[in-house]
């Protein structure tokens, strides 16, 4: 793989635009939760912005995404409008799911976001089903299925990857390896040295990449997407990354050695990507304009989420089955 080559300028700008929106959104969520303006359980994504942004830059809006409860970066990168997303995080009727899913269950079929699951590993078998539909329909779509390193220790991972490989389904399994499953370091609870090895053990095309390197991540993503669209089957991408703010907000990351965290922050993918843009002659003014535009989007979306009305309580009787449940 051409890990050392920079992606095209337009691609890097695209990745940066998505990643900056994610970074600023994450900061804003943490501020608002800290200030008591939002009362939600929040799984911070700071540090993992580039993985998602590069992956989603390599697919189309109509391609499918299945992700997990730490999914804000995937959802924004895939293109869910910020207003809809913020309103759902706040439990409002104007949210993507009328407030009935919440942060852990974001769904937005218009941008291909089909499932966000709160159960580790459970998205993998469902991603196969979406991809099976594409394979039978011959619609050329691929399904991106995101999960963490911890998910490779649950049975659904092994059942799901095996079936995907046996059926040659057009899925990209994107393992965002941030080295910690909740509070447990990977080496403590994972028997293999890498997640890639597990994919290889299942006979699947498997690659490991520095997910925080926009160009390398994009190249790996693009290759996997092309492989799937050509009908060759799935790829497991193990994208190495890190998270800076705990498993969930309020977690002090006491289980992460200080030096490891310091090094990770030195390797923060966001300033690196920003510098890369400057290096390839994107002007400071152009970058600042992207950042300002994202800030405005977030300002509008967060205010909208606060102001929007809650759904009526009776909404619980709707969408259980196809017909309304009697009171």
């Amino acid at each position: 793989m051409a890990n050392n080559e920079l992606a095209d300028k337009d691609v890097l700008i695209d990745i940066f635009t998505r990643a900056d929106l994610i970074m600023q959104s994450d900061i804003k969520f943490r501020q608002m939760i800290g200030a008591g303006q939002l009362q939600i359980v929040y799984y911070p994504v700071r540090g993992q912005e580039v993985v998602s942004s590069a992956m989603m830059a390599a697919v189309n809006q109509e391609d499918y995404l299945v992700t997990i409860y730490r999914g804000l970066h995937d959802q924004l990168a895939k293109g869910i409008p910020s207003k809809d997303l913020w309103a759902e995080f706040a439990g409002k009727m104007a949210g993507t799911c009328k407030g009935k899913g919440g942060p852990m269950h974001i769904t937005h079929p218009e941008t291909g976001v089909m499932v966000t699951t709160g159960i580790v590993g459970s998205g993998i078998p469902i991603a196969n089903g979406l991809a099976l539909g594409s394979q039978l329909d011959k619609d050329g779509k691929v399904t991106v299925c995101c999960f963490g390193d911890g998910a490779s220790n649950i049975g659904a991972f092994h059942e799901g990857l095996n079936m995907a490989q046996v059926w040659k389904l057009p899925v990209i399994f994107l393992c965002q390896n941030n080295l910690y499953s909740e509070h447990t370091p990977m080496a403590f609870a994972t028997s293999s040295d890498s997640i890639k090895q597990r994919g290889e053990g299942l006979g699947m095309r498997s690659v490991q990449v520095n997910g925080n390197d926009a160009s390398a991540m994009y190249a790996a993503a693009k290759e996997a997407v092309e492989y799937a669209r050509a009908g060759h089957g799935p790829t497991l991408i193990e994208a190495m990354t890190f998270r800076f703010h705990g498993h969930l907000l309020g977690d002090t990351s006491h289980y992460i050695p200080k030096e490891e965290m310091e090094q990770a922050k030195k390797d923060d993918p966001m300033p690196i990507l920003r510098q890369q843009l400057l290096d390839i002659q994107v002007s400071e003014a152009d970058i600042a304009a992207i950042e300002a535009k994202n800030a405005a989007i977030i300002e509008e979306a967060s205010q909208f989420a606060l102001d929007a009305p809650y759904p009526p309580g009776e909404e619980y009787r709707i969408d259980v089955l196809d017909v309304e449940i009697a009171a």
Partner: protein
Amino acid sequence: MTDKPAEIMFAQACNMAMAKAMADDPKVIIMGEDIADEQGGGVFKVTLGLSEKFGTDRVRSTPISEQAIVGAAVGSAMVGYKPVAEIMLMNFITVAMDQIVNHAAKLRFMSGGQTTVPLTIRTTTGAGTGLGGQHSDMLEAWLAHVPGLKVVAASNPADAYGLLYSSIMDPNPVIFIENTPGYFVKGPAPAPDHVVPLGKASVPREGTDVTLIGYGSSISRCHAAADKLAEDGISCEIVDLRTIAPYDEETVLKSVAKTKAAVVVHEAVRNFGVGAEISSRIHEELFSELKAPVGRVGSGYAPVPFSPAIEKAWMFSQEDIEREVHKILG
């Protein structure tokens, strides 16, 4: 007319329902362990001939991976397919409960109605043949307790045909429970266009003294008990729920309002069973009109035993139904 009407077996009825659904709608696909003809057409041959007729794209044998099977059904259902997932035996559903309970049942709700999961899970179970503790449990009460799932159990081949077709075409996730010992029981063949709507009970026997409420494998025993009780001058009405969740409360309450006595009968363990819910609802609505508290018949509080001697003692029976009716009618 002296011609005996054509009869078919329960397993054949299920096969015919799937064949009709597949012929009617190209989005109907089937997956499960060993279900394609090359692998034998299913361990109980319920899918025999379907892959030959409709191809292995649409009739797919799978790895032994219940989570992956149900997950593939959930995902394909979300993008326009009407998948039928065969889970060989109901106990194996335990392996896929996360996909069924956390996903199939909830995705419509959690997405605010943006995604739907019109899948059918066919599975079989039933005691009485010495399969022991992990191949014959009746787990319908677990599933009926989950909002968003429909649970169906037919008691005869014609209903199996009509109910399975409706289950496949239903826009909600449906668990269709078949009965292993009942696969080879024959009954009148349905007309090809025979459809039984979900959520509608039937009253296969009318009576005046007591209502026996059951479904699936309990109905044949209810009929036998009703015949015996008639000799004692007790007239039984039978309500066959056909759909366990959501069940046809109107038909149940109407029948019990007439007979003023009821016994709920199922093969599942009696404690915390479907009978508890139905009995409770009858008490809530008709308490002051009842001749006696609602009776319940079910199997014992134990895993299904292997030895025929213990299995027989554990399992609900025709005699249990008769005894319960005599008990409540005094």
